[in-house]
């Protein structure tokens, strides 16, 4: 009964004209962003974040979330038609999607990836509605000690599970922590690292950091990389219809992909790319015909597609129930909540039921919209891919500049974006993942606040972090992750040395 009344509240919230419009706008922008290689959903979300300051919190999150999961749908289109992954998570779809297109089955591939995306998202939204409220109720009993340890685990996971060197992941998190410390210390009112600059007294704007390291850095990094598209296969309605064999071969991979994606999305620091690659690897391993993979196996596109869409939805579970963002996109969502005066944590669902349930229903609406819109708009997306880089990217930089200016009406924010753009570009060139930096920036002040509060309540006794069972479990998991990472590094180095010696 309670669930029914909550769903009714969600329907009432999501079906307002404003929320429906922003949901449709979000998923359409997301699809567009997903199709265009070189513009990530992070850049798009950070670019549009300032525009959501002028609408209610629920509407803002509905639109930003729409961009995120809409991009997962669109990402596979360019992978299949052009062998260009629109998003990192859809890179794996190139492996079998492009061969399918070369065999004249691009329509079937597009249809099946759309259906797989819908299945993955839809099932995970139901999981979110079923499990998020009980998890939040459980987490209400957490105190500052548990929160500190949980956030520590989130940061360790974000640093360790990144692609590339874990040392660089840790360095990026620490850099984020330092950036989060800039401004007024909430406990004492003292200025830290503001160097007398008044625009830094309230801290560095999250939008400036996100737009710089994701938006501007991507524009810079794509110079000379993204080539204009000249042609792509034409898609007719008839070519979209899959055979009975295609459907039969796709059903179980879709469900397995959904399971993998849901599990991976909940874990901090993982994200949609790991989910799709893992689903692909599992399908290949359990397949009776692994040799088919890479040559146009339909399981090779449906499993990763359902996995990355499921992960995009399940990432909201820790974000909305615990206030712990699993990846950089979720960190931006938390940033948006904070801007709207909503403190992330287990009380979000009980204090703002219309936000949570409205979001759940809007996910369902958004996914239905994507299912309907994805295929008819393919032709339009392919035409958009022909827009030359020197015209498309200055527009992005311009929107970034105006967007960040509109927050505080300060030209200093545009300068900050430029500085973070260069920093983001340097990080990309040197093999640092920028996402952990944003997580460090968001979680840093929260970690510090909870650490100091826990110590103050326990007269400075550090043992409190290992005496409380929940906190001890999180600390133990963090230590295990670090140990596993160190072991993997040593093992990899030994293997490389042995290979070099041969």
């Amino acid at each position, binding site marked *: 009964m309670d669930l029914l009344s909550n769903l009714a509240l969600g329907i009432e919230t999501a079906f307002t004209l404003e929320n429906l419009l922003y949901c449709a706008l979000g998923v359409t922008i997301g699809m567009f962003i997903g199709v265009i290689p070189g513009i990530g959903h992070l850049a798009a979300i950070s670019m549009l974040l300032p*525009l959501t300051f*002028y609408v209610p919190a629920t509407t803002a999150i509905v639109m930003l979330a729409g961009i995120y999961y809409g991009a997962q749908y669109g990402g596979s289109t360019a992978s299949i038609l052009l062998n260009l992954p629109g998003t990192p998570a859809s890179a794996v779809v190139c492996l079998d999607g492009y061969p399918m297109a070369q065999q004249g089955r691009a329509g079937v591939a597009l249809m099946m990836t759309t259906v797989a995306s819908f299945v993955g998202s839809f099932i995970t939204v139901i999981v979110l509605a079923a499990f998020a409220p009980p998890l939040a109720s459980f987490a209400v009993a957490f105190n500052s000690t548990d929160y500190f340890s949980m956030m520590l685990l989130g940061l360790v996971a974000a640093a360790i599970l990144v692609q590339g060197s874990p*040392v660089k992941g*840790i*360095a990026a998190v*620490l*850099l984020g*922590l*330092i950036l989060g*410390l800039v401004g007024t*210390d909430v*406990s*004492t009112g*003292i200025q*830290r*690292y503001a160097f007398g600059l008044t625009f830094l007294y309230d801290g560095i704007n999250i939008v400036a950091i996100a737009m710089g390291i994701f938006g*501007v850095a991507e*524009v*810079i990094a794509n*110079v*000379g*990389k*993204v*080539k*204009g598209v000249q042609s792509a296969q034409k898609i007719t309605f008839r070519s979209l219809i899959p055979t009975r064999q295609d459907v039969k071969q796709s059903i179980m991979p879709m469900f397995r992909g959904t399971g993998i994606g849901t599990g991976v999305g909940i874990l901090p620091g993982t994200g949609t790319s790991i989910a799709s690659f893992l689903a692909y690897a599992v399908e290949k391993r359990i397949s009776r015909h692994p040799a088919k993979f890479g040559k146009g196996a339909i399981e090779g596109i449906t499993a990763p597609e359902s996995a990355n869409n499921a992960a995009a939805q399940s990432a909201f579970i820790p974000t909305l129930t615990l206030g712990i963002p699993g990846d950089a996109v979720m960190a931006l969502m938390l940033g948006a909540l904070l801007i709207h005066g909503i403190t992330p944590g287990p009380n979000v669902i009980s204090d703002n039921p219309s936000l949570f349930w409205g979001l759940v229903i809007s996910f369902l609406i958004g996914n239905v919209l994507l299912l309907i819109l994805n295929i008819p708009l393919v032709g339009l997306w392919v035409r958009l891919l022909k827009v*030359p*880089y*020197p*015209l498309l*990217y*200055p*527009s992005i*930089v*311009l929107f970034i*500049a*105006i967007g960040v*200016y*509109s927050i505080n009406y300060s*030209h*200093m924010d*545009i*300068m900050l*974006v*430029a*500085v973070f*753009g*260069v920093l983001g*570009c*340097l990080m990309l*060139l*040197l093999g640092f993942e920028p996402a952990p930096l944003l997580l460090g920036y968001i979680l*840093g002040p929260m970690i510090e606040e909870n*650490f*100091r509060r826990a*110590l*103050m309540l*326990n*007269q*400075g*006794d550090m043992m409190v972090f290992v005496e409380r069972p929940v906190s001890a479990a999180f600390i133990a998991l963090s230590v295990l992750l670090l140990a596993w990472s160190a072991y993997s590094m040593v093992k990899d180095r030994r293997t490389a040395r042995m290979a070099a010696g041969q």
Partner: protein
Amino acid sequence: MTETRSIGATLFNAAVVVGAAVAFVASGNLPDIGGQGSLPPSFFPRVTTAAIALLASICLIRDVAAMYRAQQRPCFPSITLVGVAGLAIFAVMMGYALLFERLGYILSTALFVVTSVAVLSLLARRSGQEKGAWSLRRGVGLVVLALAFAITIFYLFLVGFSITLPGLPLAD
């Protein structure tokens, strides 16, 4: 012939070590406020900067040791297209930020669009990403497009989002 090795990463690590050391010292100037069991505001900055300095030092030592072991000759990193693009976009954005309130939104934005399209076109041509020659007609077209774009965005923000941008040069 001795092999060469770019010191780009080494320089970056060295800069991080220096930056972290400066931030560590700066945190020492923070007042030592803190009562029974509570931590002073300098605690987290010190721990974080020390950890950054330590990690960057390890990376720096490993870099230098690898170069020494392999008997490679250090060399400055070559100037890449991305590097040039980074500097160009940085300069254009900084210029835009400085001119934004002086020239007003419409003129500074049109200037920004013309400059950035020209810079990115030039870089894209150098990489073979774009083809086609520049002409006076295309240049004039770009200026007209930039002005139209700036005015459209100005009214979009004004009407659509109720955000007033400084339209024309601000009077002193």
